[in-house]
């Protein structure tokens, strides 16, 4: 077995996917349980933080971004920043009317 694998030849073992799946299911159940307990305004924040963590797993492992050319990750982050900017500006407008 090669210790340093070429990124292009990187085959993710089945086991990794199953571990990630287990993690994602645990996070989902955590999110459901935490939002059942009324945490007031924190609920939204917690639910969205957990969703963001789950997304990171899906993007990096399932969608292979961790092993791809960095160009893909940079472009993806760019799109997210654009979305974040549009959301912030729109909400600033609504909150200050």
């Amino acid at each position, binding site marked *: 077995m090669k210790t340093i694998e070429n990124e292009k030849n990187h085959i993710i073992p*089945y086991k990794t996917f199953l571990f990630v799946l287990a993690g994602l299911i645990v996070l989902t159940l955590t999110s459901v349980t935490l939002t059942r307990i009324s945490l007031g305004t924190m609920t939204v924040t917690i639910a969205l933080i957990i969703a963001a963590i789950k997304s990171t797993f899906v993007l990096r492992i399932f969608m292979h971004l961790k092993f791809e*050319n960095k160009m893909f990750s940079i472009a993806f982050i760019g799109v997210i920043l654009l979305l974040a900017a549009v959301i912030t500006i729109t909400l600033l407008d609504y909150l200050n009317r």
Partner: protein
Amino acid sequence: MSTILVKHRDDLASKTGMWFFLFTELLLFGGLFIVYSVYRYRNATAFHLAAQELSVFIGTINTIILLVSSTTIAMSITAIRKQNKKFAVVLLGLTIILGLAFLVNKYFEWGEHFKEHIYPGSSILALRGHGDVLFYGLYFFMTGLHALHIIIGLIFILVITISILRNRITSDNYVLLENSGLYWHLVDLIWIFLFPLFYLIT
């Protein structure tokens, strides 16, 4: 001199194209999330109460179904690269069955709402006030658009499965399988946000 037939192929370009398409999908759903945020901010109480009527149980089951289906399609790439064609086809078949299960749940879920006369344009829903109309309008539109993506994804995966059976997708030419996987994961990714925003934040 022997002639070597080489079909021109650029896997990196193919994948880049897929990612660019996924970016437009993110902007499409992103726009809808902005609409959701603004209306939720302006109709906080109505959204809060209406969201309690959604079944967290079905929502959670559907979330897990999509997560498992994402895992099976991701594993099928490993299978095809290990030249295990049969296992890859089994995994893709599982992905399709799970996708269909998601839609069946959605059918029963929507059916329940329709029975209570909750659907876009319903006069009984209109009586409940502006906030409820907006919540359910967004709910049906966003989960409906998501379900449409599931249907498209299933057709995509079915075509890919047939290509594998016909040896058009092999251990050294699997970028189309990767692209169908990317599409399916994006659909999963959007659900990861739809689920808490509609079902959990009450």
